[in-house]
């Protein structure tokens, strides 16, 4: 199976010459794998995720995602790459002035799909995350768990090659967290999507085989 993500001697720092957050990391993630990245607070989990969706350029080494080296990739290629990613945030990052349905189809809107396709997909996705009745409501009218389900539906909208999730259940109660994990397991299993989740704790209810990386002392190590 081909690598969807490959890091080689990867070093990450917010400013050139500043203290490194990640140093000389080497790892590969294959298509369809479910990966947890854990580590103590401030260890650099979210920084690594930012680098994976191109928000932070590697200061040294290479980070190849979907065949593109994010250390050297241009703006337009990066934009194109992001349209094949589904990203889930701890604070949901929904557009509060848009309806739930419009939030869900954002990736389709960006890809230029017709409004008919967007409407059909919005219905399908909201049914999938059990939020059909909330299509016309606004994010701030929903509970945290419901907002995160909207976030997951948005991440799945365009059948992404890779889903990156930053503490997706960090703000949720146990019931809502279990629903989110279920949805992500399904995405990995049914769509063969690579899922990479940054979390401080791996859920006990998780049933899929997964790989586990830990970030410690600036290094990224696989736990066997």
């Amino acid at each position: 199976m081909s690598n969807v993500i490959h890091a080689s001697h990867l070093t990450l720092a917010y400013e050139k010459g500043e203290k490194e957050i990640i140093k000389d990391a080497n790892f590969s993630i294959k298509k369809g794998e479910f990966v947890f990245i854990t580590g103590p607070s401030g260890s650099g989990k979210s920084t690594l995720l930012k680098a994976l969706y191109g928000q932070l350029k590697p200061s040294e080494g290479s980070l190849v995602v979907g065949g593109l080296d994010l250390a050297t990739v241009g703006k337009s290629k990066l934009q194109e790459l992001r349209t094949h990613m589904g990203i889930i945030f701890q604070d949901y990052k929904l557009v509060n002035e848009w309806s739930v349905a419009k939030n869900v189809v954002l990736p389709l809107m960006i890809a230029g799909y017709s409004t008919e396709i967007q409407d059909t997909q919005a219905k399908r996705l909201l049914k999938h995350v059990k939020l059909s009745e909330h299509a016309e409501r606004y994010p701030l009218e929903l509970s945290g768990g419901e907002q995160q389900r909207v976030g997951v539906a948005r991440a799945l909208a365009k059948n992404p090659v890779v889903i990156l999730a930053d503490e997706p259940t960090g703000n949720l109660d146990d019931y809502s967290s279990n629903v989110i994990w279920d949805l992500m397991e399904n995405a990995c299993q049914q769509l063969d999507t690579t899922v990479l989740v940054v979390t401080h704790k791996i859920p006990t209810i998780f049933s899929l085989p997964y790989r586990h990386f830990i970030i410690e002392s600036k290094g990224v190590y696989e736990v066997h």
Partner: protein
Amino acid sequence: MKFIKNHLMFILPLMAILLGIEFYLVFDRTTNTYEKGLKEGYSMLVVTKDPMELSKFQDLNSHISSLEKIKRDNIVSEVSKGVSKSTSKAILKALPYFYNLGLDTYLHSSGLEEIKRDLEADKNIKRVETFGGSYNSSYKLFSFIKFTLKIFIAFMTIVSLFLIIKQMEIWKYAHKERMQVMEIFGAPLMLRSGVLFKVAFIDAIFATILVSAIFFYIKFYWAAQSGIDIMMENQEVLFKLADIGILFGSALLIVIIAVYSVVFSAKGVQE
């Protein structure tokens, strides 16, 4: 109510800038006509030993644009009343040549002095009279009005720009989250800034229409009934159809700069 307030907060400073631009255009056109009148009404008197052609004067100074010979016969007939024909002929022979010289532009008194120096450098020219005193007082008044208006327009533009920057801060706050989310999901710049552009574009149209309406009113109603000579004489140049294009172009330029400043400052993911 909030919707109207948000639009007005951009439309009003934009209108102030457009008013400044239009005032400048109108004033420039009106003063050009006035300046032309002053220029045409002005001429300097030159006395030469021998006759001289316009090209010769132009060789001495390029600002000289026209030449009018003062008929010597008329002068002689005035001064030789009651004298014999032969004396009259002798006077005519001894009389130098007189010319009124017109200029191509409206010059400051130092410019006139320079022309005088250039002309007097020629040995054939005996005397140059610039009538600088009366000319200078009109010029100074004219320059003062022009300068004052320019200062006023510049001040108005600066204050309006500050108001627009303030509005851009509000836009940034209101649209940042959406633009950042769209950026994360790979939306190109045009799509990210689309909503903001639409809002600003509509405001630009409104501001242009309102400023044009004000000047149409000034041109067709106020100026006609104002009783102010310079306004009534120059009614035609008070507002031209082409000005709508200039105003809309300027509004559009301000909108593009404002929107892109907001879009670029809203890059990156907020923690």
